[in-house]
């Protein structure tokens, strides 16, 4: 089957088949990344703009490498301040970008839904590299690929997601993806970080304690605590947070012995993950980063509607 969307903004907008297609394409892309010369001409002559309104070295670099491996010309635009305070609206930015005739715009923006706003106005493809607390589809896909690598499947797994669900776009993409693929998702975190009605997003259970969520889990995804974004009212401090919602060798024993531990990074060591766990045998954090490039190559490839040339 083919991929019919101009843009990739949210996993919840995709079908199960489309998500499977993206993951299997990423599996094929991985072969390119292990070659001596890591480049194919698939997107030769195409222009990709990485438009980042929030700094994120790793996601931007990952998209940039993905574009370059497919031979696209990639340009980075980093807007350190918000569009509004700069005096240029996103609409102005959109018109300027349109005039430069890019083929794909990869955007990160602090406002949920801003990618839909842009996609409606631009004829080129938009890929969401994170919008506010809405979605982060490439992260969701790379999480799924990493789990599929380990278990060979995505259905029938118990996936625990722990931390600040309210403000996490990773959580929303993961929930959309995993529940669509037939896994059960268990959430844990302080009630101040649990958004209303979240259980209605799919096959999702909100747990009262971290223990309930990670008990017998196949996968544990720990979310990053971003104190700067949440203000001061959600938790007393990181010390108490790590005590009740951090993953350490002791509470990791509640999960299956070979449970996968994942984290979208960058890790606050000693807060969400103790270093023993972050660097331990259960950790798949670096594997996630590796898979990130392949997944982003698959996304760029499918929105550009090209055929894979592997000469």
């Amino acid at each position, binding site marked *: 089957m083919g991929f019919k969307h101009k843009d990739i903004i949210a996993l919840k907008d995709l079908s199960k088949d489309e998500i499977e297609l993206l993951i299997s394409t990423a599996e094929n892309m991985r072969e390119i990344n292990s070659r001596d010369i890591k480049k194919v001409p698939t997107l030769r002559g195409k222009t990709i703009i990485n438009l980042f309104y929030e700094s994120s070295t790793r996601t931007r670099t990952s998209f940039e490498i993905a574009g370059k491996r497919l031979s696209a010309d990639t340009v980075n635009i980093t807007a350190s301040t918000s569009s509004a305070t700069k005096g240029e609206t996103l609409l102005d930015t959109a018109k300027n970008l349109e005039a430069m005739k890019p083929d794909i715009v990869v955007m990160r923006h602090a406002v949920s*839904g801003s990618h*839909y*706003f842009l996609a409606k106005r631009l004829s080129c493809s938009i890929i969401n590299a994170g919008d506010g*607390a809405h979605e982060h589809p490439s992260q969701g896909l790379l999480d799924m690929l990493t789990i599929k690598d380990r278990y060979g499947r995505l259905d029938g797994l118990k996936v625990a997601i722990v931390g600040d669900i309210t403000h996490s776009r990773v959580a*929303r993409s993961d929930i959309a993806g995993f529940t669509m693929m037939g896994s059960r998702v268990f959430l844990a975190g302080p009630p101040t970080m649990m958004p209303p009605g979240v259980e209605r997003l799919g096959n999702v259970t909100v747990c009262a304690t971290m223990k309930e969520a990670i008990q017998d889990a196949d996968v544990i995804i720990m979310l990053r605590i971003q104190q700067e974004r949440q203000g001061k009212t959600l938790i007393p401090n990181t010390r108490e947070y790590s005590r009740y919602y951090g993953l350490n060798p002791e509470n990791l024993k509640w999960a299956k012995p070979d449970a996968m531990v994942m984290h979208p990074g960058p890790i606050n060591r000693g807060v969400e993950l103790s270093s023993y766990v972050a660097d331990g045998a259960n950790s798949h954090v670096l594997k996630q980063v590796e898979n990130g490039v392949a997944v982003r190559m698959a996304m760029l490839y499918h929105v550009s509607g090209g055929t894979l040339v592997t000469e």
Partner: protein
Amino acid sequence: MNLLIQGGRVIDPSQGIDEVLDILVENGAVKELGKGVKAPSGTETIDASGLIVTPGLIDMHVHLRDPGHEYKEDIVSGTKAAAAGGFTSVACMPNTKPVNDNKAVTSYIIAKAKAEGSVNVFPVGSITQGSKGELLSEMGELKESGCVAVSDDGHPVTNSELMRRALEYAKGMGIMVISHAEDLSLVGAGVMNEGFVSTELGLKGIPWAAEDAATARDVYLAEFTDSPLHIAHVSTKGSLRIIRNAKARGVKVTCETAPHYFSLTDDAVRGYDTNAKMNPPLRTADDVTAVKEALKDGTIDAIATDHAPHHIDEKDLEFNEALNGIVGLETSLTLSLRLVEEGVLTLPVLVDKMACNPAKILGIDRGTLKPGSVADITVIDPKATWTVDADKLASKSKNSPFLGWEVKGAAAFTIVGGKVVYKR
């Protein structure tokens, strides 16, 4: 000039009238109601058969943006929109630039409305100077200059002691306080109702408790000070429960809701449509049900639009950046008539909430067709079907979530002081 409105279904709750009658208007006043009314020769006649004739509708909560933000709306365009919506009077909120906290601004609004406006404009002054929430405004002079109420609409009075004093002071001046009930610390950076939809969209939510808590405070202060209080744009089940209980205790509290709170839920925000962004935000189906129940049982006294025009550049933005508010004057009547179709309200009760009660609450001599009263009359065609079309709105701004809706019912004639100011 004289006018005979013939054979319409006259609904005037102020006199308990609901029957087919003729109305004769002479020198701007209602002269006679009856069957087979004879008019002097040369009297202009409106054939109102099949139409509904009511006291002129009154929107007690609009933003005319004049002075200061005339690029969004001004008194001329805003009152044209009002006339097109069947309104003969509007009360305009003081969050203009400068704020209507003094005689000069009040007088300017009244003079401009008299000279160039299509309908009556009754200004609302501010509760505090500059609506800054620090010092009481000169409510005595505001009232004397023509203000019909005071409100810091757009900004709640956050200081409880100041709100207490405002209620006490306003009572002494014989002017009523209209509360914009919102606990700002609970609203925080929220941009839509907090609930399942905000969770799914990843937008920061505004809890219903932000409205309920503020409503409760103001209702208790009204009870404590024994002062009349009107709560603007009520949107939550909880606020309505608080107001219903207070009314039962005899607290002098009245309230209004707006058509969007009984016509839409926060589902309208899906797709990040900034025309569904308003304050208070669109709530859940539960709240919509509660609003309808409260309209039915009389907890809600009035339907007002909170007509809030914004320029396209202030709406065509990412959701977080867009301004709050929608235009409402031209869709209020048709949306409200749906309540009659749905069996929530009878037509006379609807007319009560759109004409008689607003006049009573504001204490203005309108909202009736009693012989001798000012001939402000709305003639409604309940069968007219039309499409809400941005190009056809008289308002300068087009920020409506109802664009494209196929609707039924419209003003056929709007008559102010005996003069036809709008004809469909």
